[in-house]
């Protein structure tokens, strides 16, 4: 193998991304941004328990950010795009790497969450698209009132089918995070016998918090706690 020549920034990026390690690092970094968003999103929405005014004011505040809101949206969109692109390319590589399957294969350490990352991912993506059409742009909403988020949430979740999809998708999201949060740290190179057990615990706690928090919204509407 000859000498490695990385003359431009583009060449450097291409060299990095071309490797199996580079693609995974891209997944981890974009994943971490999305993880933080998901937490912030859930915490913000907790205001639904404080009544219509509080939630609608919060929504108005976010809308009022104007360019700032769009900057955040663009960053998120870029992260989602890169996360999906690298996931897709890695998934293709995985199919390539073992063309003949095992007659018998057992697993010793793999968790359910780790095994289902390639399934939970696309389902969560489908959910996000539905979710945006449902509560952000309103096309998938039966009675959408721009600016009245509280009403939209109550009306949207009153449909048990829609609520069920939210519940299932958010459980999958939680499972995705259960493996993903710790996996991010490992992929960017954080592993230390002192901290890794805590990072694994953090990953599980993160998944539970997000899962319970998000599932609570449709449940609260369906059971009439929030109306």
């Amino acid at each position, binding site marked *: *193998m000859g*000498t*490695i*020549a*990385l*003359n431009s920034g583009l060449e*450097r990026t291409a*060299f*990095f991304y*071309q*490797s*199996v*390690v*580079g*693609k*995974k*690092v891209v997944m981890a970094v974009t994943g971490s941004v999305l993880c933080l968003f998901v937490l912030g999103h859930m915490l913000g929405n907790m205001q639904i328990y404080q009544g219509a005014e509080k939630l609608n004011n919060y929504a108005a505040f976010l809308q009022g950010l104007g360019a700032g809101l769009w900057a955040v949206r663009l960053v998120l969109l870029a992260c989602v795009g890169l996360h999906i692109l690298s996931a897709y390319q*890695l998934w293709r*590589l*995985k199919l*390539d*790497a*073992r*063309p*003949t*399957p*095992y*007659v*018998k*294969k*057992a*697993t*010793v*350490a*793999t*968790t359910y969450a*780790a*095994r289902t*990352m390639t399934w939970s991912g696309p389902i969560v993506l489908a959910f996000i698209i539905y979710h945006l059409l449902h509560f952000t742009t309103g096309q998938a909403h039966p009675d959408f009132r721009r600016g009245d988020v509280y009403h939209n949430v109550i009306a949207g979740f009153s449909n048990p089918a829609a609520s069920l999809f939210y519940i299932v998708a958010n459980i999958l999201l939680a499972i995705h995070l259960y*493996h993903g949060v*710790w*996996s991010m740290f*490992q*992929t*960017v*190179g*954080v*592993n*230390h*016998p002192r901290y*890794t057990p805590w990072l694994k615990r953090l990953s599980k706690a993160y998944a539970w918090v997000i899962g319970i928090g998000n599932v609570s919204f449709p449940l609260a509407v369906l059971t009439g706690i929030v109306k």
Partner: protein
Amino acid sequence: MKIILNIWRQKNSSSPGKMVRYELGNVNEHMSFLEMLDVLNEELTRKGEEPVTFEHDCREGICGSCGFMINGIPHGPERGTTVCQLHMRHFHDGEELWLEPFRAKAFPVLKDLMVDRSAFDRIIAAGGYISINTGSAPEANSIPVKKQCADRAMDAAACIGCGACVAACPNASASLFVSAKIAHLGLLPQGEPERDRRAMRMVLKMTEEGFGYCTNTGECEAICPKGVKIENIAMMHRDFTRAVALFREESKAGGAG
């Protein structure tokens, strides 16, 4: 004791293979797994059939030649052991076992349970070395090494290159093997000068050879007969990322020597 074996039989790399069932009635529980296969092969030879091909050399768990899947686990059900060190007492009378080769695009099957692992050699040749000529033994205290680094390097150096990590990985990734070498050499002062270049070359080679990527399932670490840790994989990711980010051309003008 009696053992029923379903063994993957494949003539060569271009022909298809299939599972063939054998019954072995006279297995002694003190035999190693490979000795049990020796008995089977003697029987097959006596009957004029083709013996089962499997790789082996030291039979004491240090060379990394042996290895195949037993019931879907590389080197079988016992942790921290190679198949040559696995004894039949861990199985029960009448047990049915499935033996098949390690499967990965980068490990083509040569015959029966034997795969071509020369991709590993090519990855090592790409950067798994130190470019210093060996001479007479240096004075022991001339290069100080931190005890913790020596320990970690030693643990990583325990890798025998058997390929079980690739076999166990859902993505057929060679990350554990490659990272063990990167950590082993990179943690020591003798290997430090080439640390960046080593990470770049070995990771690139591993990608080129068609191995998959690491999804941090921990499967490799769990089945590694030498207990090599995925902590090394984190170090490889760190080293590679750092190396690419900070890469500089060598100066053409200076540094002759």
